[in-house]
């Protein structure tokens, strides 16, 4: 047996076994509302463009979810990366923010839901920013949904960025300074490039957690689209096959995003040579 074949045998044997047991159990139980047959799930997955119930298709729901996560994630990046860089390099900024960060960090993103709802309500982005126009997409993206994703993605990005700067060997910075580098040159030519590997790790983890917060965010009142909403909607109609198909989609998308990020991380060949 070739090593390649063995590799894939090891990787796939457990998932195949679990799927087989699932299917056997489903057929024996014969209760689609509790344990849907895998072929029913596959039917949903294999027709991503088909309209599911009265919400949009699986594909549309996935797209809107992706857009939400991306927007919340980008907002988190825009604040966490600069703040992390500053906290990592400048002691007094670190001291000012550290206590607050450490106190807010352990609060699960879900615990923010009631407060965020109280503050922001269930209005869509289009209501907040009229210049976006009144297209369906913008009005179906609520500010509160983005806020939850933001909270989830923010802390891993911030902490990794801080670590990224702090772990720069001090000789790098000292060499740079005795070569005449300071101010913006030191930031953009030494501190930021040297911390990019850990920043990327933070982005990957942040995006993953943001994606995980999605279901919670889309469960909130006023939601009418997205994979998280789809799952809850299907639950109310006792359609376990759609629930499982939605879960599988969430898992697959998360997996693909993670792999894409890892690919970029590996492009930075120098990250292990520090």
């Amino acid at each position, binding site marked *: 047996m070739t090593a390649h074949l063995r590799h894939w045998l090891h990787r796939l044997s457990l998932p195949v076994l679990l799927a087989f047991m699932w299917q056997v159990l489903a057929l024996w139980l014969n209760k689609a509302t509790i344990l849907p047959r895998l072929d029913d799930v596959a039917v949903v997955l294999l027709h991503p463009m088909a309209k599911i119930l009265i919400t949009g298709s699986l594909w549309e729901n996935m797209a809107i979810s992706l857009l939400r996560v991306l927007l919340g994630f980008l907002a988190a990046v825009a604040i966490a990366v600069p703040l992390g860089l500053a906290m990592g390099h400048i002691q007094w900024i670190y001291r000012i923010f550290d206590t607050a960060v450490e106190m807010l960090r352990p609060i699960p993103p879900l615990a923010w839901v009631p407060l965020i709802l109280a503050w922001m309500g269930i209005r869509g982005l289009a209501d907040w920013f009229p210049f976006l126009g009144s297209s369906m997409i913008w009005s179906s993206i609520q500010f509160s949904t983005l806020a939850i994703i933001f909270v989830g993605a923010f802390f891993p990005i911030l902490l990794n960025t801080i670590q990224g700067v702090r772990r720069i060997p001090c000789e790098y910075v000292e*060499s740079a300074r005795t070569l005449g580098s300071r101010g913006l040159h030191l930031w953009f030519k030494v501190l930021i490039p040297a911390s990019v590997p850990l920043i990327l790790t933070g982005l990957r983890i942040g995006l993953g957690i943001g994606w995980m917060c999605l279901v919670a965010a889309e469960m909130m009142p006023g939601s009418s689209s997205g994979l998280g909403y789809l799952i809850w909607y299907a639950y109310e109609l006792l359609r376990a096959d759609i629930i499982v198909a939605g879960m599988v989609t969430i898992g697959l998308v998360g997996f693909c995003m993670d792999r894409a990020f890892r690919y970029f991380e590996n492009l930075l060949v*120098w990250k292990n040579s520090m």
Partner: protein
Amino acid sequence: MLELKAVHKTYSSANGQTTGAVEDLSISIACNEFVCLVGRSGCGKTTTLRMIAGLERATRGDILLNGTPIDGPSAQRCVVFQRYTLFPWRSILDNVAFGLETQRIPKSKRKEVARHYLSVVGLADYADAYPSEMSGGMQQRVAVARALAVNPEVLLMDEPFGALDAQTRTTLQNELTRIWETERKTIVFVTHDIQEAVLLADRIVVMQGPPGRIQTVVDCNLPRPRDKGSATFLQQCELVHTLLEGIN
């Protein structure tokens, strides 16, 4: 001229205790002079070098370069460290050109200067390589080229060959002598290797401590190139060795 006048350095720990790192250090180093600081670890030689670099501030006393007090690091006083400090995300050429970016020099000129100094250290063919592809000895040569490229008045070297194997170290010592003779720089070189000091220096500052003090300054007038096997060389080493041992 580089002057240290009654320089003191003390560190205070969190519980308020102070420990002296360097005590009453005075020495004048002439232009183009090659001075080695020797002494066992913890004798304050690295601290002295870092104060000259401006990476640390003297608690008391003055450090003057051509009469001007030193205030923070600058490209006038460039440091080559023992640990490899090339930027791994930059090609070798871009590493050497790094310091030139902070001076208003056009890009093409920067590359030209960087290429020149790469050839000075014998690595002209490696301009497009990356640090991770090079051996330790090659990386240190690039570090020397990077420092020379900014045309510093004083080159500060903190055990730059300490992490290299014996053969590579010998090669780099000879190269440094050659470069120093052609480029004419003031060099302050920290080492704990007596042979290295005798091979390179015009003057050897023997330090004791902690707290670091200058025990003696030994003139080292052997003609260059110096032969590590010659009787006079060994005598000189013996002398420095006795001075260092005499500290105990």
